[in-house]
């Protein structure tokens, strides 16, 4: 079975290095599934979970503000923030979610803080999802 070397890097250091059989992630233009031998590709990712498959296991990683760089035998995910499920503080994410929700409720849609709160909400929900897998 062919495999892919996957590494996830953030400005705060590498989050994960490993060998997997398949990577699926959500790019801005849609869902991407990457198998070994993929053509070189660069795509920005949405705030989402990256799924890494190995045999019968699937590992999840929450990413935000990142993009994926694909080479035939190597996948690099560069993200401004990325966490493994075990590193996620669910309580903190829950609080962030509530805070963002409140902010969204109290502001008009053209407000710049509205956008920011929406992004914060997405990040919090994404983290909670990943942590619960």
């Amino acid at each position: 079975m062919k495999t892919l070397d996957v590494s996830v890097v953030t400005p705060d250091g590498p989050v994960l290095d490993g060998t997997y059989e398949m990577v699926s992630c959500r790019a801005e233009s849609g869902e991407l599934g990457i198998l070994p031998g993929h053509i070189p590709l660069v795509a920005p990712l949405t705030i989402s979970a990256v799924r890494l498959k190995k045999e019968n296991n699937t590992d999840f990683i929450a990413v935000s503000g990142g993009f994926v760089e694909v080479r035939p035998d190597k996948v690099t995910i560069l993200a401004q923030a990325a966490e493994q499920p075990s590193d996620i503080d669910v309580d903190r994410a829950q609080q962030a979610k509530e805070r963002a929700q409140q902010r969204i409720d109290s502001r008009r849609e053209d407000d710049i803080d509205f956008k920011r709160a929406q992004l914060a909400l997405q990040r919090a929900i994404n983290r909670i999802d990943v942590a619960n897998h």
Partner: protein
Amino acid sequence: MASLRDIKNRINSTSSTKKITSAMELVSASKMTKAEQNAKSFVPYMEKIQEVVASIASGNTDVDHPMLQSRPIKKTGYIVITSDRGLAGPYNSNILRSMYQAIQNRHQSKDDYVVIPLGKVGTDFCKRMDLPIAKSIVGLDDQPEFAEIKEIASYAVNLFEEEEVDELYLHYNHYVSAISQKATETKVLPLTDINAEGKQLSTYEYEPDQEEILNTILPQYAESLVYGALLDGKASEHASRMTAMRSATDNAEELIDELTLSYNRARQAAITQEISEIVGGASALE
């Protein structure tokens, strides 16, 4: 000549200062090691993002993005990285002096530039010198995380995107080694000199297209340049503080030696005087 008790007091106060400075030296040394590690763990991210940006920017000449383009300079932005606290030797004064000189050389009027100081010392300096401050941030952690700096980095990048400033410089102390830090100026924006020499560039497919990718990647790249400089600056700060504290400790030791000598001399003089008084008194009785 100072009295015995005066000298004793000075010795005591100097040795308690010495205790503090040597403790601070140890603290800075361990912080420096950590800061060095942080800077190291940032390298893979930086290299990768640089590689991707370079391969996009150099692979096609028809790529067009405002952040890659030089435009006539009407206003310049300066980001300067300083510490929050002093006691770091020449760390802050070096970087502020080099920035101030650069500004004086380049601009005639205050409307031609804005400063974004990071750290309290830099902010106070700008206020004192009456430099226009666009935004400042104080109280950064000793081991800053990307999230802390993201806001101000994207603010600076935004200034450029909205053509508030037409170029952006970064002033920070580059960490050469534990005993040497160098005040450095780098140009962040526009991204005219992305060097990827010696690296093998690959040609990529872009999903959805190059423009879209550049739109997300370039701001991230610029932000990470700022973050990288901050990590570098923090490592320099701790190194500089460590050196400053070490020489303070050495000086205190020297002072204590000197004072102990004069204390002993004074004590000896007092004893000699007492003896000669006794002898004088005894011979007067005979």
